[in-house]
């Protein structure tokens, strides 16, 4: 059983503020969903390897950057808080 305290902890990890009544509702719903997905525990043996994905890194080398300023205006326009071309955030330490 998932408790409302568990939900509180998860919501804190996920950085989502929840109202009390939603914590109760979520505990019940997530219990229901876990009840359904718990069936995977009965599948196969423990020794099966995970599926492998043939994926490789395709990032370009960190050189020959595009001309400075090419994308600045479009990106800065999306900043929720700014000062000039600077992104404004609250102090962290």
């Amino acid at each position, binding site marked *: 059983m*998932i408790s409302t305290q*568990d*939900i509180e902890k*998860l*919501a804190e*990890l*996920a*950085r*989502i*503020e*929840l109202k009390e009544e*939603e914590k109760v509702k*979520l505990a019940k*719903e*997530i219990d*229901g*969903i*876990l*009840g*359904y*997905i*718990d*069936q*995977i*525990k009965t*599948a*196969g043996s423990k020794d*099966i*390897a*995970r*599926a492998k*994905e043939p*994926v*490789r*890194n*395709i990032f370009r080398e960190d050189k020959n950057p595009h001309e400075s300023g090419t*994308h600045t205006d*479009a*990106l800065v*326009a*999306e*900043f*929720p*808080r700014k000062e000039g071309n600077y*992104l404004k*955030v*609250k*102090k*962290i330490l």
Partner: protein
Amino acid sequence: MKIDLNTLTIQKAHEHLVKKDFSAVELAEAYLSEISKKNKDMNAYLEVYDDVKMQAEEADKKIASGKPTVLTGIPIALKDNILRKGNIASCASKILANYHATYDSTAVAKLKEQGVVFLGRTNMDEFAMGSSTQNSAYGVTKNPHDTSRVPGGSSGGAAASVAMNGALASLGTDTGGSVRQPASFCGLVGLKPTYGSISRHGIIAMGSSLDQIGPLTKTVTDNEILWKILQGKDRYDGTAIDENTYPKLPLKGKKKPIIGIPYSFMDQGIDKEVMKNFEESVKKLKSLGYEIEDISLPNIGYSLAVYYVLMPAEVSSNLARFDGVKYGLHAEGKNLIEDYLKTRAQGFGPETRRRVILGTYVLSAGYADAYYNKANQVKALLQSDFEKAYKKVDLVLTPTTPTPAFKIGEKTDDPVQMYLADIFTVTANIVGGPALSVPSGTSLVEGKKLPLGIQFTAPNGREDLLFSVGKEFLGE
């Protein structure tokens, strides 16, 4: 000439455009006029772009120059999670309500090159999480075949836009059935290509190991036209493949592909009318000369459970980027942590919150082995089930959905019941292979003819098999 939107296909529209029966501007205006009549009620579009006429004029120039392609001047709708530079892409979420795309997705860039006319962005379940479009922050979309019912989801607006003659085709995304299920509910053809077939660059990620863009069209031929242009490697997506990535194995059938049906997986939970229609479809395929075989996929019953571990796990990490700092909604708190907490509480709807929390749970210390790692093991079992099946058969067939379109408001208070709507579609996303839903008739429910669909699944890279059987089934 008068444009008959009911019977128009991409192929036919192209022929008319080239013969100058009508111009791209006239064609776009015909669609805009339908949208302005119907969208207020249907809510298929969240926004009609303000440059539609300009795009159509450009297309007309391209046609006049004698260099059009089959897609030049074709009016297409986009799901609200596919980026088009300069336009809002909100994922039907409040958290991205004012986010303007700063670049084109690869899919949009490829269609731009063809001279496609983008009509607008369509409604969806928030962040593509849902099977009914009821999770949109901007209201539900209605099913044009019965407005008391859902169009399916999450690409519900994309499907409804085509079904109401508000676009000739649309692009959706499919993480667990989000193109095929609404295609089935709205009487359209919907494709989930092989994982990696269409670049994911510039679509807003939900479950990165499952997501694929897919076209929604009126015919299989139209779907193939779009897929051929959209597919291929991309320097911006390391998972993108091309037509030669997977070897094409010889057919098992002598003349036509052998179709396998996992009957043991279909003995419960399916609407009677859906099953009757499915049997009729099987009969039709037999009469077309296809051999049918009952096959066993021992682990397929675990598919939906595997999906509801892997998908939320990936959701919880993908959606961590929406924090109110660099773009999108920003809510003020006393400090940075409170900014995050409040932004995400105000910005995300209930289903999104539920899946982020669930994903955080299945990835958390102590549970990752029991859930996330175990689900990845069962994924490998499922892949091996299909590999074995494809040694005997060439295609796998099931209904696309266990029921026809359900009522608006139904299933909204029971997440597990809602998730079961995807029982037949999630497997293709987990296994990776392509799957195509084609219309297979209708079911008469409360005086309304509700569309039904069947779904063909093929080995990796075998979209060609899906298109050929689909065309034959629909008599194209």
